[in-house]
């Protein structure tokens, strides 16, 4: 089973009220070094079989038509997770 990750972020020029709320809460827990937070969305799209170039193209199309609204959001990543799993999924320090 393959998996495509799509990440969507609010456009830089759009004020991100959720990020603003989070950055306001961080200092209350002692995290005073973070001066800004922007909150986005991560989608994981599963497919039977491998993530082919066609699957990636379809994910890109879905990303810009449904998963994001181009008026307020940018699609910042459309990627085959298996292809770069070693780098991104297991480097969390949990092992």
């Amino acid at each position: 089973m393959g998996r495509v990750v799509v990440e969507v972020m609010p456009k830089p020029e759009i004020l991100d009220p959720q990020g603003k709320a989070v950055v306001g809460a961080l200092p209350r827990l002692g995290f005073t070094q973070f001066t800004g937070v922007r909150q986005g969305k991560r989608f994981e799209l599963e497919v039977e079989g491998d993530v082919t170039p066609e699957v990636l193209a379809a994910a890109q199309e879905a990303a810009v038509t449904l998963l994001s609204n181009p008026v307020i959001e940018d699609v910042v990543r459309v990627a085959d997770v298996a292809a770069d799993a070693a780098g991104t999924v297991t480097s969390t320090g949990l092992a």
Partner: protein
Amino acid sequence: MAAGLDAAKVGVVTFPGSLDDRDAARAIRLAGGQPVALWHADADLQGVDAVVLPGGFSYGDYLRAGAISRFAPAMEAVVDAARGGMPVLGICNGFQILTEAHLLPGSMVKNEHLHFVCREQVLSVENTRTAWTNQYTPGQRITIPLKNQDGQFVADERTLDELEGEGRVVFRYQGWNPNGSRRDIAGITNAAGNVVGLMPHPEHAVEAGFGPDGADGLRSGTDGLGFFTSVLASLVRA
């Protein structure tokens, strides 16, 4: 009401999570029209002359407010009809659906102050040439309820300048901008003036005793009724 108005049929689309569909139907009836219940999964608009997309939290506002409703079978029919000139009014969640369907520009994001807001809101009516505002006078102040969490209207500067330049800002917040909307915009129209969207709720201010406080006393405000008499008047003229 003139006899010809009896025949005007105004559809109200119910989506999963719509809240104000019955109030919208009631407003249409009080204005002298015939409300017709439409269902999101049914592409048949049943021969209506106009459509209201009511407020609520369709599909739980999942993904983005209005994002999933846009692809409902009823909406595809509404988009076609709107492009053909049928009057369409989007209230609150309905406004969000209209922007997601690209019938109106811009989008709504979370209120600047992050709180859900529910209040009686003063608006100015800035464009009285639309299908939904022709019974108001230019600059008229009206008071109708406002209740939303994702009500901050945003668009890029070029789009905002176009809206202003073409007189397509239909309503502006007066007194206080309740959600951080760009340029105090509460509602807009398309170039043809048949599609109007706004965040506040005219359908909650149509009957004395149940509306906002008004000049004639508590709950006496009926400033929203003009939306529905306007569309009936525009259908008679058409």
